[in-house]
């Protein structure tokens, strides 16, 4: 691993301000010139269950976690239990002083299956059953302990601020943890203050209170802990403009730039954040005046997808945003949109499934579902983004594909990207172009009656929007003739089926290969890794590490799983000796699709389906075993809490 980096984790009960402190931490590091990647893990719960943020701070661009934690800030005993094992030798743990005496088996929020497993571990190590026992064990590895009397500090704060109710200040525990953290790291205090003021920008009084709390903890750590942390964080120069954003936000930004003007949604994790962000920013500036997006919360996902279709027929670029259970409800509407050649965009945030599954956790379970959903055969385009930057450009470009080929586009995003935060150099907005496809002009309609579904060589007919002067048109879910009227005639059926399906061939032919896949490394390398979506960053980093050990691997990232660029994939895989599929699902869905389309089978599978994203460390280790011939066909990764 690069030594010029630092890994910080903050954990505690949901609702205790973990997200806010993560936001402040990330910004503060960003102001100091560091790149960041932060993964958010949380339960399907409002308050009380364990949540945490795992941050990687680096001088170089990072987009995945490693298995290490240099400094753990634990708000509660459960965080210590779950994460102390991830802290590296010479690392540190900030914890509540009073938690030391807590018995692990009595932590009420720990599920029984966890306690049973953990008990076995403690017995094997002949360890006692309290937080203190864990702490003593960790100290043997030179892990430093920083016990803090958070409650006492909060009481002092309340006195200083003349606030009677302690409950009004308890939330500031998160900023106290930041005070201790940044004191131990000797980091520039002014950068943290700036971050606090930005995060609480709209509430200056709260910002001041938090700055005070931060300083208090900072001073406390300075006075109390003489055994400082080994690593320090120093301000470094930044030579570019950077943004620090969430995956959901990247998608929202892409949609606005790409011309989306109606978004429908029904609340669902982890998709709803995107719609809420859009609604909060519904009015914006256009080069030629004011612009706005109408964000519509519907009664269900059935309504959401069909409302988006209605809006698209009227000429707005329209999208809906959902996750697995919601997409399941949209399927009939998807089939209608396919049959009626409606250019809607469905942003599909994948999470652990089946059914409700792991509502707040990660997974790539739905590729096959997205490709096959809907009764009947109809064309669609599936995009799968590998990181936030791709999310941004894909979100914008999805509308171009939808309108050029007049079909639904499903944009697959993984929870691991949606809920993570990351810093980037500001995206090059000039790369985004808008192409609305074939639109009918008055010359066409003067010559002859307008036919919405006119047969053409490319399969693409000119689109008119509902309301266009001098034009009327019909749409129906029934099979229809060129005018859009119901037709059950066999010859028309054939022609219309062929017309619709032809568009997919046209799209496959016209869309350049570089928009369908990314190839990292030499085309004729012996070892080729094939993947899609969020494992991208961990794979790229693991490959770099293995290169230092003398191994050469090429990475084929599929960005358009449908229509699959199968000739190109076959060309690359055909030359490879070892083909390795890496996916976050049980069966290796993309690998299966590639086999179907090319007849080429993978040699090895690295899979993960425990709901936690792949880390660089585990991808590296799994690939290494394959390259050393030590591993069987399938490895299942398990890291994460």
């Amino acid at each position, binding site marked *: 691993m690069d030594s010029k980096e630092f890994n910080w984790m903050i954990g505690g009960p949901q609702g205790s301000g973990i997200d806010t402190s993560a936001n402040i931490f*990330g*910004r503060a590091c960003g102001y100091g010139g560091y790149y960041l990647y932060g993964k958010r893990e949380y339960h399907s719960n409002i308050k009380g269950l364990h949540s945490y943020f795992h941050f990687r701070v680096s001088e170089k661009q990072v987009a995945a976690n490693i298995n290490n934690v240099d400094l753990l800030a634990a708000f509660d005993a459960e965080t210590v239990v779950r994460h102390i094992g991830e802290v590296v030798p010479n690392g540190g743990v900030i914890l509540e002083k009073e938690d030391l005496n807590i018995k692990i088996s009595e932590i009420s929020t720990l599920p029984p299956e966890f306690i049973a497993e953990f008990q076995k571990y403690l017995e094997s190590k002949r360890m006692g059953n309290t937080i203190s026992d864990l702490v003593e064990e960790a100290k043997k590895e030179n892990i430093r302990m920083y016990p803090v009397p958070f409650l006492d500090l909060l009481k002092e704060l309340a006195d200083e601020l003349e606030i009677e109710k302690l409950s009004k200040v308890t939330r500031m525990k998160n900023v106290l943890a930041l005070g201790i953290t940044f004191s131990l790291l000797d980091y520039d205090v002014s950068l943290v203050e700036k971050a606090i003021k930005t995060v609480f920008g709209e509430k200056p009084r709260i910002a001041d209170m938090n700055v005070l709390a931060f300083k208090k903890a900072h001073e406390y750590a300075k006075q109390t802990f003489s055994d400082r942390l080994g690593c320090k964080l120093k301000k470094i120069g930044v030579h570019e*403009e*950077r*943004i*620090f*954003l969430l995956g959901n936000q990247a998608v929202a*930004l892409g949609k*606005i730039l790409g*011309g989306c*003007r*109606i978004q*429908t949604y029904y609340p669902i994790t982890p998709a709803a954040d995107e719609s809420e962000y859009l609604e909060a920013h*519904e*009015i914006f*500036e*256009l*080069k*030629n005046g*004011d*612009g*706005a997006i*109408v964000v519509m919360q*519907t*009664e*269900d996902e*059935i*309504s959401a997808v*069909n*409302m*988006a*279709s*209605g*809006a*698209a*027929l*009227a*000429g*707005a670029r*329209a999208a809906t945003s959902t996750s697995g259970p919601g997409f399941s409800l949209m399927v*009939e509407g998807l089939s*209608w949109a396919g049959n009626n050649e409606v250019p809607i965009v469905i942003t599909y945030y994948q999470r652990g499934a089946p059914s409700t599954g792991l509502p707040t956790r990660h997974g790539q379970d739905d590729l096959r579902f997205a490709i096959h959903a809907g009764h009947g055969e109809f064309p669609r385009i599936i995009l799968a983004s590998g990181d936030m930057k791709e999310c941004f450009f894909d979100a*914008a470009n999805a509308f171009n594909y939808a309108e050029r080929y007049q079909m639904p586009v499903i944009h697959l995003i993984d929870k691991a990207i949606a809920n993570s935060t990351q*810093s980037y150099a500001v995206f090059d*907005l000039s790369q*985004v*172009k*808008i192409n609305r496809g074939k639109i009918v002009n008055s010359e066409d309609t003067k010559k002859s009656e307008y036919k919405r579904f006119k047969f053409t060589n490319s399969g693409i007919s000119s689109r008119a*929007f*509902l*309301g*266009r002067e001098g034009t*009327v*048109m*019909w*749409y*129906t*879910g029934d099979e229809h003739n060129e005018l859009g*009227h*119901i037709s059950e005639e066999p010859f028309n059926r054939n022609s219309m089926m062929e017309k619709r399906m032809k568009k997919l061939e046209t799209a496959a032919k016209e869309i350049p290969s570089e928009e369908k896949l990314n190839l990292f490394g030499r085309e004729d390398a012996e070892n080729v890794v094939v993947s899609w979506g969020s494992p991208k960053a961990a794979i790229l980093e693991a490959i770099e590490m293995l290169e230092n050990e003398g191994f050469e691997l090429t990475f084929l990232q599929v960005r358009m799983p449908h229509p699959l660029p199968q000739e190109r994939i076959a060309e690359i895989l055909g030359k490879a000796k070892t083909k390795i599929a890496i996916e976050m699902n049980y069966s290796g869905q993309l690998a299966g699709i590639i086999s179907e389309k090319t007849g080429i089978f993978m040699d090895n599978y690295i899979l993960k389906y425990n709901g936690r994203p792949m880390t660089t460390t585990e991808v590296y280790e799994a690939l290494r075993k394959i390259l050393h011939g030590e591993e069987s066909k399938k490895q299942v990764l398990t890291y994460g809490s």
Partner: protein
Amino acid sequence: MVLKVSDYRTPLFADWCPGCGNFGIHTAIQMALAELQLEPHRVVIVSGIGCSGKTPHFTNVNGVHTLHGRTLPFAIGIKLANPELEVIVAGGDGDGLGIGAGHFVNSGRRNIDMTYILHDNAVYGLTKGQASPTLKLGLQTKSLPKPNINAAVNSISLALIAGYTFVARAYAYDVRHMKDILVQAIKHKGLAFVNIQQPCPTYNDINTKNWYSGQDRIDPKTGKPKPRIYKLEETGWDPVVRNPDEELDKAVAAFRKSKEWGDKVPIGVFYKNELIPTYEERISKRIPFYTKKPPAKQEISDESGAPTAVMEKWLKELKV
């Protein structure tokens, strides 16, 4: 150019059963459009699945024949994207009150400026006559193997409670009256609901044309049938809410009236309230230029294909 009723008819053969109430409804729609002189390109008829679903194909305005139960979501999407369009929804009773009941209720909450025509014949015609949500408990229409075990939904009551701001009933064999109701519904500012009592000559052998006109009960004095259908407006019924104080009383009165059925079946406007802001007005409060530049009318790119959206404000918030 003056638009005639026949200008709103496509040349397609209307494949409804002889005597179907849909013919009357379709005629009334065309008459209403002609009376209002609405240009075909500005009108969109959105329909669901079932016999009524075919209405758009026979009407020479934009037509969107959608999915079973999903008429309202499609219609709302169209209207929100381009509020200049006159959107008329035509759906069956099974469509709106069975499979689409969630949309029926939630659309009332929004009060979007559209017209919703419910073709109510108490049966699922196109699938050969099963009981629809408006068939009364215990009735056994022609193709039912057993009497109906479910109670009926009263769509007038439900529309009132869900928040529809114009609630009316018409009768498919009184075309002129139906046209008058539709004209009022289209002109109404807000979501207008029109239940149309529509005999199904093929599958509903109970609520027949003869039943509505009272052929089964001859007045012994006059020797003439006593019709069940009567017009609210002929009884001095005043459905209009003119100030907020009247809202509750008028709604309660309309609700009470909605329960009238059997010997007497009222048609006409039960309730009308234009004091409730439309959804378009609610959006305009947040987005003041919404009606001038609705989603479908915004220029999203310049001539070179570059997006028009200026992202500086968004990016500034995210800068580190």
